[in-house]
């Protein structure tokens, strides 16, 4: 299939060839790129998108809701892949704050490192950070699965409600503070656990869950090296005798 789109204000429209399209972020604005992905890509039968020269720009490929594969050829800025549904988004570089924030489904893969709040409040889908993730990784996650090849910064999985955070490296201070039903697996050292987070014995189900997530994330690690961190649930109910000393 070959067709030419009619979007973009004043710019030459991107050419779609055999379901593939390249969008040069130095030629098209972020708004034009996202508008194309939201409103034109599905109509034109686009299956693969390559975003060139991202140069750390913010908000690339946010709010997608179509089964498309997006390759971002370089470093991306804040919120890349935010609110994603269905799409598979790969970033061939590092990302700024809040990658895949509030993702619903699909996959976001970062081949470099991620700045703060990676996968924040994600409801579903898979986020893979092949390098390190910074602080507050998986904060308030609500069902997303996150695989981190390296280490995570402080306050990761803070108030995490559902889903899995798998950390192959180390975790900095206050891991899993005020954790709900999300489960954290850590392959390396844990600097400290946050309030109400505790280490629990590993079960065969945990090993299965880790193996599956490692496989989906394309991370090659031995599931036997992980520790399970989950909520002690002591914050679930108000304890009048605790005297505010949690």
């Amino acid at each position, binding site marked *: 299939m070959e067709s030419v789109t009619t979007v973009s204000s004043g710019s030459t429209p991107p050419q779609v060839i055999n379901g593939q399209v390249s969008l040069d972020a130095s030629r098209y604005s972020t708004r034009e790129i996202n508008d194309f992905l939201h409103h034109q890509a599905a109509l034109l039968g686009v299956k693969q998108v390559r975003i060139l020269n991202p*140069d750390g720009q913010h908000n690339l490929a946010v709010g997608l809701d179509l089964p498309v594969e997006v390759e971002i050829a370089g*470093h991306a800025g804040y919120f890349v892949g935010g609110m994603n549904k269905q799409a598979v988004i790969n970033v061939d570089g590092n990302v*700024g*704050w809040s990658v895949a924030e509030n993702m619903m489904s699909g996959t976001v893969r970062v081949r*470099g490192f991620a700045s*703060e709040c990676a996968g924040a409040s994600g409801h579903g889908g898979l986020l893979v950070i092949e390098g390190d993730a910074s602080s507050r990784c998986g904060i308030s996650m609500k069902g997303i699965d996150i695989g981190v090849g390296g280490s995570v*910064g402080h*306050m990761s999985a803070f108030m995490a409600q559902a889903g899995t955070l798998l950390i192959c490296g180390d975790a900095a201070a206050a891991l899993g503070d005020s954790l709900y039903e999300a489960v954290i697996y850590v392959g390396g050292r844990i600097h400290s656990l946050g309030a109400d987070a505790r280490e629990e014995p590993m079960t065969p189900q945990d090993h299965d869950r880790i193996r599956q997530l490692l496989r989906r994330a394309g991370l090659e690690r031995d599931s036997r090296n992980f520790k399970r961190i989950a909520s002690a649930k002591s914050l679930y109910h108000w304890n009048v005798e605790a005297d505010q000393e949690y």
Partner: protein
Amino acid sequence: MCGIVGLQIRNREKQSQLGEWLLPMFSCMADRGADSAGLAVFTTPVAPDVRRFNVYSPDRQYNWQKLRAALMQRSDAPVDLEAVENHAILVSALPPDAFRGWLPTVDPSLHLLSVGRSINIYKDTGHASEIARRYGFGALNGTHCVGHTRMATESAVTPYHSHPFTAGEDFCLVHNGSLSNPYSLRRRLEKYGVEFETDNDTEAACRFLEWRMRTGDDLETALHAAFAELDGFYTLLMATADRLVLVRDAFACKPAVAAEHEEYIAISSEFRSLAHLPDIRNARIFEPHPEEIYAWKV
């Protein structure tokens, strides 16, 4: 929100490109703060018996030659002058304390921006691009520089509240964030005779660090004291004549990214302002950790 940038040229032959490489970094970060902007540039030091005095005037057509003549008379020595509109660099043998006392007697509207053998500071209210164009940032050369684009959140928008802040000689600091205890810090420092020029929170941090260093600390020790004393959010980027130093608060609330390349060290609030740098793809790019001191020797 504010933007910070820093650039150090490692390859001495490329120092003439400092301004050219810096300019897009600086202008890009105006997106994070468009009310004021400033830059400190470190260049070849002047002789040990003279100082660079950077002076700001609210008058864009200020008669700097007149000031130069008055300074020559006061110091009984030659004075070099380099002036652009409302900014002047005067190189003089008058001791810094004497200069500080003398300047307001000549014209109380003038503001002393910096003192040192290497440092020049340019800052004003307005958009970073306009300030950069006025002072010719693109043509600056030197060993290293730190810049700031401000979005004021805690004190007035004036040229004097803009960053970089300086204290003592050949030291400057830019700050992204906000401090919640600048007044208590200030009251403590005032007991030791430290004088303030504004009510800006960053000035308190700057004078605290300079005071610690003046009373015996090296910058690392002073920064460890600052970690204990400063309450609030901060990414601080500092420069001395021979170092570029970066720290973030314990919660790493404000962003920073650093790029180490064999030809340069570049620091910014966001990667996108570094994307144009030559061969950036082969730089080691990383996000600084909270309460760790990153220092690069010039």
